[in-house]
């Protein structure tokens, strides 16, 4: 039995409350419905106490205390509001602004910036100090993540998310005082660092010190170029989150509106990454079966998440043989578009402009990997946009998203099963694999479609699933700190797993580094927000007739008329790839 925690009595703004020992003032106040303003604080990260925005008065203390990092004590009398404390908070925020560019209107984060919202809420209406500002160049080395240190308020959330949630430890505050800068080791560029390009630093940054590398320019150009056949594909998790950008509640599926919006933007074909996911499943299930039969490297680990693949190459290169050789769904669909579809439609691949809308910034990096270029050196995926960028493009074009009529994906590369939809959330690839593997292994129609035991995984889960005569030991992890637990278990060799799904981002793609910034009042990485996005995908899957990748008629057609069979030489050439150990080698 867990040891009962000692109770502490205290008063906050004249209200009495009893809380567990160890509770902070900020948490105790929340229980009373008092939301103390905060900036550097995040409930899923360690405490920093860096910004001092959450200061409160405590009776008997002759200085203000940071509510986020001060545990309560017996008989404590806290005041969260008084003219003095409000003035102090306003001054603190004003001083933060004084060392911050005044370019809100042209900033990527305009309207969704926590510093901006905070300044308004604290009542900063005038600027009293004109001081020196820190000056740093914008760092554009990476295909995925842009670092603009002039906008940094040194809250340290990016440092903490990178270390604590992702286990990458790529960022640290360097230098001191006025010259402090958040940077990878040796002030290096992101491209020359242990960065895995997952983009969680972008998600947690309260300002725009981290943003995605912009990708819309070439897409606008291609859309305006009559000689280009502009194709777009959207990842499963886009439909579950895009509505948030237009004021729809989180978890509202918006597939139909999204497709219509893409058509109005001028895309010639709207394909579904879900078909790529279906194809991934067919190839991956085949690969798993081969590995089970031939004693190949087990467990097999999924390879859809490019952030995870980067992590594998830099942190656990000895486990590369365990990664499935399947390209990601995005890459499979791009390859098919520039081979199969190009052949069928009689359009030259060089005239096809392939745009991928992804919840992910690591996909921007993945699209430029040499493994994923065509034989002539041109990329299979010409441009990758994040969900946020697509939302912006739709707004820029003047499309009233919410009231759009529902559209449908184009055949043949827009036909997908529900198994493809659930790729967008943690446990989804595992469930889709199990749906396929059970038929492949037993040779009989699957007796069940839903594997609830691998759904809604908060971080890490392992379980056994009976498939035919195999009792498969499977595990799912999201967030790379959780993945490390699994990877170390594999390395220790004490437990034998068969299949492992790893997603770099918390909650899987629904929590990706390219997803919409949450609405005000909802914190980023909020498990409830991620669950709501995931439930939209499960609802889409549950509402489909077609729920197994193998039964997708488009997949059957692609194999019968183009690829041959799963694992055929042509399928291997087009749909599989290999990974290599990379430097700098990260420290686990």
């Amino acid at each position, binding site marked *: 039995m867990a040891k009962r925690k000692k109770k502490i009595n205290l008063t906050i703004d004249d209200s009495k409350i009893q809380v567990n020992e160890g509770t902070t003032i900020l948490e105790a106040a929340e229980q009373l419905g008092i939301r103390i303003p905060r900036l550097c604080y995040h409930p899923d990260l360690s405490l920093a106490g860096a910004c001092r925005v959450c200061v409160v008065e405590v009776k008997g203390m002759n200085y203000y205390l940071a509510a986020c990092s001060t545990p309560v004590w017996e008989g404590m009398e806290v005041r969260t509001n008084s003219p003095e404390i409000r003035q102090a908070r306003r001054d603190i925020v004003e001083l933060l602004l004084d060392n911050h560019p005044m370019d809100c209107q042209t900033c990527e984060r305009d309207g969704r910036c926590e510093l901006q919202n905070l300044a308004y809420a604290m009542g900063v209406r005038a600027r009293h100090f004109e001081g020196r500002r820190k000056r740093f160049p914008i760092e554009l080395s990476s295909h995925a993540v842009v670092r603009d240190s002039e906008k940094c308020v040194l809250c340290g959330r990016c440092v903490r998310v990178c270390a604590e949630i992702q286990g990458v*430890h790529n960022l640290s505050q360097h*230098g*001191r005082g006025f010259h402090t800068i958040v940077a990878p*080791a*040796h002030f290096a560029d992101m491209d020359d*660092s*242990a960065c895995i390009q997952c983009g969680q630093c972008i998600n947690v940054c309260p300002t725009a010190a981290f943003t995605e590398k912009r990708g819309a320019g070439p897409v606008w150009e291609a859309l305006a170029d009559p000689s280009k056949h502009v194709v777009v594909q959207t990842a499963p998790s886009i439909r579950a989150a895009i509505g948030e950008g237009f004021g729809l509640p989180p978890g509202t599926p918006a597939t139909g509106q999204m497709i219509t919006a893409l058509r109005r933007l001028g895309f010639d074909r709207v394909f579904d990454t879900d078909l790529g996911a279906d194809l991934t499943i067919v190839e991956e299930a085949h690969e798993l079966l081969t590995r089970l039969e031939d004693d190949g490297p087990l467990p097999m680990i999924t390879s859809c998440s490019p952030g995870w693949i980067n992590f594998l190459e830099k942190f*656990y290169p*000895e486990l590369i043989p365990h990664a499935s050789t399947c390209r990601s769904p995005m890459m499979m669909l791009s390859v098919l578009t520039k081979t199969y579809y190009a052949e069928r439609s009689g359009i030259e691949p060089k005239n096809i402009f392939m745009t991928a809308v992804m919840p992910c910034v690591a996909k921007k990096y993945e699209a430029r990997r040499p493994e994923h270029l065509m034989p002539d050196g041109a990329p299979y995926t010409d441009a990758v946009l994040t969900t946020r960028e697509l939302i912006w493009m739709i707004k820029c074009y003047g499309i009233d998203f919410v009231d759009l009529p529902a559209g449908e994906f184009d055949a043949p590369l827009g036909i997908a099963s529900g198994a493809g939809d659930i790729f967008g959330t943690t446990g989804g690839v595992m469930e889709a694999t199990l749906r396929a593997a059970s038929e492949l292994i037993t040779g009989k129609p699957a007796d069940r479609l839903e594997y609830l035991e691998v759904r809604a995984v908060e971080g890490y889960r392992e379980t056994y699933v009976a498939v035919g005569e195999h009792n498969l030991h499977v595990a799912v992890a999201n967030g790379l700190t959780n993945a490390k637990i699994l990877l170390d278990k594999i390395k220790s060799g004490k437990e034998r797993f068969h299949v492992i799904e790893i997603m770099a981002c918390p909650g899987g793609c629904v929590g990706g580094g390219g997803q919409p910034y949450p609405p005000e009042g909802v914190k980023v990485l909020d498990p409830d927000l991620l669950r709501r996005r995931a439930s939209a995908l499960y609802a889409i899957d549950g509402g489909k007739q077609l729920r197994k990748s193998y039964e997708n008629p488009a997949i059957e057609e692609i194999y019968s008329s183009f690829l041959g069979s799963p694992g055929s030489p042509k399928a291997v050439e087009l749909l599989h790839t290999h990974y290599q150990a990379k430097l700098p080698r990260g*420290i686990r």
Partner: protein
Amino acid sequence: MSTCTDNWPSVEAAAKEVLGEEIAGFIEHCRALPHPESNLIAVLHRVQAKFGYLGTAHLDAIAQLMQIPAAKVSGVASFYHFFRLKPRGKFMINVCLGTACYVKGADRIAQKIIEELGISWGETSKDGVFTLEGARCLGTCGLAPVVMIDQEIHGQLTPDQVPALLEKYLKKARESST
């Protein structure tokens, strides 16, 4: 430690090559202690004492041997003024910028040195002879304005004495290298 990275033997050998056996041995000793990472600053001190500065190769080797993320190691090294991230020159020039020296024209002395050597604060001259630093007070205000070169004090300086002073050390540097 052998499980911490896939290529530990080569990582360890490369790090030892960079840092030398003595420091590698000290790190090994630290690793046996509780909270080995808390010895990072002690290790940085030893490395700087041996090499005169903390280069990226040194910091990476420390990170690997101690298994502390490189960003953390370079973050700590860049925080403290004492640690130098660039090679220092043969002679360290410390211009006192304390109140007394400042009043007596330390800024003009410093300006002359900067012009003569073509370097700024914290930098090392191209020939690797001088590194220029500012000190807050050397405690010899009676001699203001004061410049300390390595351990030698030069008091009551005027800007026009600076070239001859630097030449004296340049000569020393030339002699010791031949």
